């Protein structure tokens, strides 16, 4: 099970980091904020945050508690920045004219930073020990993460509905319509997985070794990586299947 989880995590990290890096390159060309926010979010989460958090324990075992703490701090900073970038993306793309979105984004950022600080300040020097403060901090962080993912999923599904109606009138590209659905599905599963992990931690499971959370994160990681891949790096065959020959050629 551990091997499956490691393979799934590696696949997730590779897809997320590749998609994020390619989007950051696009942002460098277009100088537009949405690709900067989303590329930054995916790259920081999959390419920096996850690897550092996963590697913190073996690093700690090899080089001592300070090194472990440093790796966790770096990983948490990347994950919190990635969350903030995702909130900014959703606000900028879907709700730029909304009055409630801006305070909501900054409230989420404050909550995530506070939760991250609680986690960092309560990590014990004994490996394997999970303190109440860590549980609380990770729970809050996961909740902010799930909320952000849920928000962007909701907006994507809502916009997908609108785009389907446009498609019926010949006013939308079927590939772009499908992209909203894929992105929404990936985010919805990410958010639900974060909520399920809160449940696992509350139930007292060790999420790094218990088969239930390992199985959950493996399946979810593969599904989410697949959604990101098809949304942002779709192969020609998939584009042809979704949009037909003409749309695939244009894309």
């Amino acid at each position, binding site marked *: 099970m551990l091997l499956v989880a490691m393979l799934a995590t590696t696949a997730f990290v590779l897809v997320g980091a590749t998609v994020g890096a390619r989007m950051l*390159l696009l942002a460098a060309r277009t100088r537009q904020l*949405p690709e900067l926010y989303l590329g930054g979010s995916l790259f920081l989460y999959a390419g920096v945050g996850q690897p550092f958090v996963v590697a913190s324990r073996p690093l700690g075992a090899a080089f001592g508690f300070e090194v472990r703490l440093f790796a966790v701090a770096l990983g948490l900073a990347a994950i919190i920045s990635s969350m903030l970038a995702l909130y900014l993306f959703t606000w900028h*793309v879907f709700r*730029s004219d909304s009055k409630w979105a801006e305070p909501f984004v900054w409230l989420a950022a404050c909550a995530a930073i506070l939760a991250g600080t609680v986690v960092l300040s309560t990590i014990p020097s004994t490996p394997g020990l999970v303190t109440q403060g860590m549980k609380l901090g990770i729970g809050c962080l996961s909740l902010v993460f799930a909320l952000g993912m849920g928000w962007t999923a909701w907006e994507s599904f809502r*916009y997908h509905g*609108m785009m389907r109606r446009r498609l019926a009138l010949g*006013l939308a590209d079927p590939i*772009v319509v499908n992209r909203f659905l894929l992105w929404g599905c990936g985010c919805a599963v990410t958010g639900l997985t974060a909520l399920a992990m809160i449940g696992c931690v509350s139930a007292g499971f060790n999420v790094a070794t218990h088969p239930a959370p390992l199985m959950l994160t493996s399946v979810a990681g593969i599904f989410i990586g697949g959604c990101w891949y098809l949304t*942002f*790096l779709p192969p020609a065959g998939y584009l042809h299947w979704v949009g037909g020959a003409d749309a695939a050629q244009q894309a």
Partner: protein
Amino acid sequence: MADSEAFVRVCEKLEQETDFDRLEARGTVRLALKESGLEPRSITPAQMKVVLEKVLPAELATRGVAEGEALCRRIAASLSGLASEAEGGDSPDAVFARLGGAG
């Protein structure tokens, strides 16, 4: 955000050429846009022409407006003078079209 020029123009024309008051005209066009998956603040003249051709005539018919199709054709012709404001570069569909072509 303010409503687009195309939306405002169509509502004004509808108000002038039917018995609708301002509220009825705007409400009817809003319903047609909702059915089409479009928004008053971002609709372009080109998109509005499609709505006028394919959706609004039926909305007008249900409200007892005679010769809705001919009326919509006249309104569509009046949109030709509007600058073809491209839907905002940062509209969600423009963003997602760009993001899929990353790399």
